[in-house]
């Protein structure tokens, strides 16, 4: 299996699965979904190993080569994001099977008379395919179309929940569309300036013209809207909070990473030659503000899913703190590991919220007494993912935060170090506040049980988030083998 065939598998599997699920309809949608999830995640993990052995490579789609055709570029950064999407995507698919078989979904769709629940599968697989296409793409306009695929499938998935999710989906759509248009203006200016859409050629030809700065600013504004960084984050909590559990897991864990990935690709790779100190510091400042603002907001939420959604806003801030520290060694490894373990623990948290909703019928935090006794596995999953999100030692979150922290301290950046540590405390405040309820005696002796697949998947995912602590070394070697700094 050469590198190219692994990549073709990663690219085509979700797309093929999506169209087959669409055609199959209710009867075989979930079966196709699970099969595609297996094949897709296997392909993306295989690709990651191929890159760690053979280093990064380029792939000319349609055989035409860079300026005319579209080139895909697979380097370590892309391989890590693809493997993350694969693994977490597989767990979300398994969880979704249990979730939609549970009666909770049937009741929801009839109550809010949205379309049939099986529509989840084609849209979810297309979302996955769109993300894979985005991480693989090395062409500016191709990234735009992939962003649209991810955007629209996200909107459809949010709307699946009906009720107040419709307004949230509409707000997400408007903001996403405006962001994409700004991005396109930027792409157009760069094409006018350098007559190429390929990232690699652009990186070589880039020089500090005013129109290039304008293009960079517009593209960054568009992508900030899509990755919900602090000032432009207001669409995320209602969208992720009101969506169905597997959907909010997919959005919070995976989709927000696409915006972050693209900004890393732009500012640390393509525009690197432009002298980006004040821009990266600005992004870092926004990240720090997001960490504090998201944390404070999460503390005040009454509903579990809204709290976890606000925690996404905060954790995105953490990732953006990579920018001011990018020049120091080890910071990229740290940020990537943070991104991956955040994806796993955030998906596990939303799955726990889904299981709690299935058993309790609501997710008001105050009245969740004793969910530890009623649902031991979910409580364990919640605890493990909280440990990783807070960044307490035996977890991937800790390893990532440690690398960022030592990069900040080695570079003498006290501000960022303080924010990183303070953010951890804030996260601890709002997550452990909920965990405490697990130890109370259960008030309502609810007889319903969440389907075993749901609880087990969240526990496995949370366990993986902890195990990521030992993934720091292989990730470091992969990054250096893959050629990314």
């Amino acid at each position, binding site marked *: 299996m050469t590198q190219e065939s692994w990549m073709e598998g990663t690219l085509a599997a979700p797309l093929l699965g999506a169209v087959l699920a669409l055609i199959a309809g209710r009867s075989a949608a979930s079966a196709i979904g699970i099969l595609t999830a297996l094949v897709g995640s296997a392909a993306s993990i295989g690709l990651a190993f191929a890159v760690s052995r053979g280093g990064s490579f380029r792939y000319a789609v349609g055989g035409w080569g860079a300026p005319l055709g579209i080139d895909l570029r697979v380097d370590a950064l892309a391989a890590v994001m693809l493997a993350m999407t694969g693994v977490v995507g597989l767990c979300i698919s398994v969880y979704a099977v249990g979730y939609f078989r549970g009666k909770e979904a049937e009741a929801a769709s009839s109550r809010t008379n949205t379309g049939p629940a099986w529509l989840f599968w084609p849209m979810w697989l297309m979302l996955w395919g769109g993300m894979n296409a985005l991480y693989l793409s090395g062409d500016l306009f191709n990234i735009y179309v992939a962003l649209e695929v991810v955007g629209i499938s996200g*909107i*459809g998935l949010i709307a699946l929940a009906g009720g107040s999710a*419709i307004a949230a*989906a509409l707000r997400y*759509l*408007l903001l996403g569309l*405006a962001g994409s248009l700004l991005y396109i*203006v930027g792409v*157009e200016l760069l094409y006018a300036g350098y007559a190429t859409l390929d990232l690699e050629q652009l990186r070589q030809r880039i020089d500090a013209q005013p129109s290039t700065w304008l293009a960079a600013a517009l593209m960054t504004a568009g992508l900030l809207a899509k990755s919900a960084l602090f000032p432009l984050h207001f669409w995320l909590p*209602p969208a992720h909070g009101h969506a169905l559990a597997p959907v909010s897991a997919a959005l919070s864990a995976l989709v927000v990473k696409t915006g972050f990935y693209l900004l890393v690709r732009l500012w640390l790779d393509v525009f690197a030659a432009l002298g980006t100190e004040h821009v990266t510091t600005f992004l870092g400042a926004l990240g720090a503000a997001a960490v504090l603002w998201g944390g404070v907001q999460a503390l005040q939420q009454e509903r579990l899913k809204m709290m976890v959604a606000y925690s996404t806003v905060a954790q995105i801030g953490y990732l953006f703190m990579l920018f001011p520290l990018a020049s120091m060694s080890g910071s990229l490894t740290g940020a990537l590991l943070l991104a991956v373990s955040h994806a796993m623990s955030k998906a596990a948290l939303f799955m726990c919220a889904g299981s709690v909703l299935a058993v309790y019928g609501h997710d008001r935090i105050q009245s969740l007494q004793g969910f530890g006794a009623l649902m031991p596995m979910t409580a364990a999953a919640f605890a493990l993912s909280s440990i990783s999100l807070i960044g307490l030692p035996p977890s991937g979150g800790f390893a990532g935060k440690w690398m960022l922290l030592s990069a900040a301290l080695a570079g003498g950046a006290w501000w960022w170090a303080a924010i990183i540590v303070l953010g951890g405390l804030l996260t601890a405040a709002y997550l452990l506040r909920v965990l405490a309820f697990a130890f109370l005696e259960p008030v309502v002796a609810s007889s319903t049980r969440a389907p075993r697949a749901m609880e087990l998947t969240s526990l496995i995912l949370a366990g993986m988030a902890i195990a990521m602590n030992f993934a720091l070394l292989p990730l470091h070697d992969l990054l250096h083998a893959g050629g990314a700094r």
Partner: protein
Amino acid sequence: MTPPIIYASAGAAVLCLGLFGFLAARHVLRRILALNVMGSGVFMMLVALAARTDPPDPIPHALVLTGIVVAVCVTALALALLTRMCRDEGSALLPEDRDIE
């Protein structure tokens, strides 16, 4: 003042009008129209850019074609969302705009 320059400037103007319309308007249908207008402005600039060489550069034309189709898909979805929201919540404004009626 060759045609590409005229239409590129008109495109820039239309784009800015669309962006302003999107930011300023509160009725969602108006914001959808504004976004479409903004998209048309962007495409005007792109095609005007392509028209500067005698056999016009086909790549921007392909990009604009793709852009138009994507725009119509997003607009169709936005309109469906709007009608559904209007039916459920009785107002064609986003929740955060409603209370300051």
